């Protein structure tokens, strides 16, 4: 038997350690866990499903699966007359429903070449901003509740009533006003509404101040949201983010100012808020500032409300001439647009709805890579989607 040289012994020992290491690695290496978040999960407020592959508490990859609440509004719109469509699309983003009606009506008005009288445009803008406030107020409370603070959401529900009452007083519907008409509005404002609304706006400003201290000033809220879910501007643009989500990444783009629609935004003095950080905190911050800005817009609009008719001359039975038109507005959730194709019938031939949440959600697989499970919730909450707006 030949003696094993020192060199060989060293080599054998090396091989043995390597083998032991490999064995150990096989033993320790664990399989990732696949976690189905939703479709019934409190953080998905609705029926979004998120399939997340986890390594411990860390997300390896996550994929949103949409369509659990698909209601086929695009197809349904093809068998509804134009005035009937507004009833449907009210329910897309159910928290800011009047805002859904406006771009569709604007697209139809483009096709018919009618323009609503100035008073109607101004009231439209006022109601549009009121829907924005009602919508984002709830976000301000909801994101706090997603992060575990129960109290703000109740305050948000409480103070949202001030705005909803005004919407109800003017339109008759709290959530689904169905108030916008081709060529104008259904009714004029009721008596005393302007003063009441101004008071409500005052209360909403108090609400914003309170939340700026209560939520934005909270150390734990900051620790949970700062630096979480950072969206660089170019990535956000590539994924088609819009609204406050992209403005929180420092992109100064707002369809109220930069769009081509005939609303009354150019008549008042207001500011587009942006934040350079692009994280969850920035998204909350931008939305809070926008809510406050919206109350100022409403105040100014009500001060300068022109008199005159609220309905343009439109035929009793609306037949939209053949053609195609696209109108998009800056809705509470982001850019919302309707591409309407008409063949000259009572009903639209095709309606394509561009809803903000659908595009805003598309960034989640990119954004959720490598974050912790609690951060999924922060990011989803801060992106602020409404299920009806994703699935239509």
């Amino acid at each position, binding site marked *: 038997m030949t003696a094993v040289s020192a060199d060989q012994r060293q080599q054998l020992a090396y091989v043995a350690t390597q083998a032991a290491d490999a064995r150990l690695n096989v033993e320790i290496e664990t399989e990732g*866990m696949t*976690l189905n978040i939703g479709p019934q*999960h*409190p*953080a998905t407020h609705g029926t979004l499903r998120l399939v997340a592959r986890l390594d411990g*508490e860390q997300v390896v990859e996550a994929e949103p699966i949409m369509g659990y609440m698909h209601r086929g509004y695009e197809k349904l719109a093809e068998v509804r007359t134009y005035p009937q469509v507004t009833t449907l699309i009210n329910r897309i983003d159910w928290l800011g429903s009047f805002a859904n009606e406006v771009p569709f009506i604007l697209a139809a008005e483009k096709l018919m070449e009618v323009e609503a009288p100035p008073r109607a445009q101004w009231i439209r803008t006022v109601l549009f901003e009121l829907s924005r406030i009602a919508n984002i107020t709830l976000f301000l409370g909801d994101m*706090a*509740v*997603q*992060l*575990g*603070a*129960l*109290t703000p959401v*109740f*305050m948000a529900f*409480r103070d949202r009533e001030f705005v909803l009452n005004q919407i109800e007083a003017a339109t008759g519907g709290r959530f689904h006003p169905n108030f916008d008409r081709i060529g104008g509005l259904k009714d004029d404002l009721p008596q005393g509404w302007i003063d009441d609304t101004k008071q409500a706006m005052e209360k909403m400003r108090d609400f914003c101040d309170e939340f700026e201290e209560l939520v934005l000033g*909270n150390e*734990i*809220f900051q*620790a*949970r949201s700062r630096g979480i879910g950072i969206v660089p501007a170019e990535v956000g643009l590539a994924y088609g983010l819009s609204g406050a989500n992209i403005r929180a990444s420092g992109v100064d783009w707002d369809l109220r100012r930069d769009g081509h629609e005939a609303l009354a935004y150019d008549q008042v003095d207001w500011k587009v808020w942006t934040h350079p950080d692009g994280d969850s905190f920035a998204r909350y911050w931008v939305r809070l500032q926008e809510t406050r800005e919206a109350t100022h817009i409403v105040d100014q609009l009500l001060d300068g409300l022109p008199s005159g008719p609220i309905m343009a001359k439109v035929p009793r039975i609306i037949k939209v001439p053949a053609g195609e038109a696209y109108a998009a507005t800056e809705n509470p959730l982001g850019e919302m647009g309707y591409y309407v194709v008409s063949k000259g019938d009572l009903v639209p031939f095709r309606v394509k709805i561009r809803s903000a949440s659908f595009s805003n959600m598309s960034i989640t697989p990119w954004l959720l890579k490598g974050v*912790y*499970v*609690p*951060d*999924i*919730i922060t990011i989803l909450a801060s992106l602020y989607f409404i299920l009806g707006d994703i699935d239509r």
Partner: protein
Amino acid sequence: MTAATVMSGLLAVEVPYWASAIIKVGVVALVVPTAALVLGYVFLLKMMSFMQSRLGPMEAGPYGTLQLLADGLKFIQKEDIIPAKADRTVFALAPLVVLVSTFLIYVVIPTGPDAVVAQLDVGIFYALAVSSLSVVGILMAGWASANKYALMGGLRAAGQLIAYELPLVLAVMGVVIQAGTLDLQKIVTAQAEGEIFGWGGIGNPFILTQFVGFFIFLVAVQAETTQPPFDMPVAESEIVGGYQVEYTGFRFLFFFMGEFGTAFAFAALAAVLFLGGWALPWGDLTHWGFNIAGPVIMLVKVLAVAALIFWFRFTYPRLREDQLQRLAWKFLIPLSLVNIVITGIFKVVL
């Protein structure tokens, strides 16, 4: 805490062992659900509602006082569901383990010179030891539910409770050094008979010297009872209730009672350790009257501490798991060590 506690304390010296044992068991068995009910009603239903601009329950009984009884009945009526893939024995045992650990804490909490179920020389040591038993129950629940959310909740709870057991013990250590005893009864007397620079007007409640310890104790209690801002093990918006997710009916009720019972027990411990317990600094501490007045004094102090605990609960958002660990290991534990060193120095110098 109740008249029965006092009775057992008064009778303990006279009646045979077996009778006093039965009374003691009865007292503890009565105190825990009552405590859970009181805290649940006063803080969860009423204080929380007022903070959130709601009324809370108003219909069941005068001012909604019977709401929790109605809820309890509702829980008992519910179907007892055990998931098909669950480990049935462990699943059924887990809530009991949690509840028993809560019951055990009450054994050593003194509410009068004789009104204590068992006066142990190492009372505080025992209380902290049994309180950490609930981790086992929570881990059992998380594992046996055969649910991913439950498992994550159980693991989070384990990590959190272990991390916060340490600051809890270290915070108490300052009190122990100052009182020179582990016996809860003697800690109470030490505070009542203590003096502040020779002035014994209000005794010497340890919160005056151990305010850092009191703060750390409260934070750690918040984590021990898995309440916001440390409620990751049950975080509804993330893991939908964590280890409780598969539990229904009276098993869920057990967890609920365990949570509030533990909150009450820790509030009582804080009252004993930092606020002077059942005693008043004037009067003869061995007087039998304290067996009747003691529980009332205790209750006032306990509710005051519990109000603090629940106030935090309704105010703060939830921390993240890693932030929670960082807070425990990098802030609370060093702080409590410094507190111990300073207490030790003063003890030696003065």
